């Protein structure tokens, strides 16, 4: 889920940047420090939007820099368990598909794609269902549920998000549209029969 969060953090303002406009510099420094970082509680910090308050600066002994406790607004993205998301397939591999969920990628394992035997088509970089013939390729839009989250604060790239599509109303968006059309048609038929 994307969130707008009001946060407070301490920022070191190095002396060589003292001549510049304080709030602008602090925003710059905050961006450098936080954007792209992953926090266990907040998730991935996407952007520092605006600085609200900078409080009083402190000069610590032995360092010419000034430390500010800055209050600011930020946009964050935290993958939450059971959350349903839509994303594009960014890569197909032998064991599943990587789905872009915004700032992070999730892994959709082959066993979690559908109630079908899924085989890997290496030549076309696709995953194909044996019985249904349905396939997933790079660029496909999927709707999936998050079933596992493991965020790594030190190595954001090592964070892992597990996805599933083996539930009602999940799958490739085209499959969902198909299912909706089918349900609608059946309902119409039912209505036609009862009205006769």
């Amino acid at each position, binding site marked *: 889920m994307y969130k707008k969060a009001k946060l407070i953090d301490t920022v070191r303002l*190095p*002396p060589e940047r*003292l*001549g510049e406009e304080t709030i602008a510099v602090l925003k710059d420094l905050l961006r450098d420090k936080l954007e792209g970082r992953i926090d266990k509680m907040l998730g991935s910090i996407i952007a520092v939007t605006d600085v609200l308050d900078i409080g009083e600066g402190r*000069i610590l*002994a032995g*360092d*010419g820099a000034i430390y500010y406790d800055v209050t600011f607004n930020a946009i964050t993205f935290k993958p939450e368990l059971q959350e349903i998301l839509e994303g594009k397939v960014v890569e197909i591999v032998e064991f599943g598909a990587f789905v872009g969920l915004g700032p992070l990628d999730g892994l959709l394992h082959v066993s979690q794609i559908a109630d079908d035997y899924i085989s890997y088509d290496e030549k076309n970089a696709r995953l194909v269902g044996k019985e249904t013939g349905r396939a997933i390729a790079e660029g496909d839009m999927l709707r999936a549920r998050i079933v596992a989250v493991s965020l790594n604060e030190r190595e954001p790239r090592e964070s892992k998000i597990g996805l599933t599509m083996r539930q009602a109303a999940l799958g490739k968006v085209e499959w969902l549209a198909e299912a909706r059309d089918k349900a609608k048609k059946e309902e119409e038929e039912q209505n036609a029969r009862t009205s006769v």
Partner: protein
Amino acid sequence: MKEVVKKLTRYERARIVGARALQISMGAPTLIESNTTDPIDMALEELKKGVIPITIKRRGTPR
């Protein structure tokens, strides 16, 4: 409470000049025109002119 501008103690003066001199030596822009190249002299001159934007927060029991 009435706000009284007290004279800095020599310790406070040392702390401010020290911090300011370190800032200047680390590349902070100077606040006055001066001939000296020594950051400490520069900081002392700035203090004498009263242009250093640093205040002291006195904590603990007052004298």
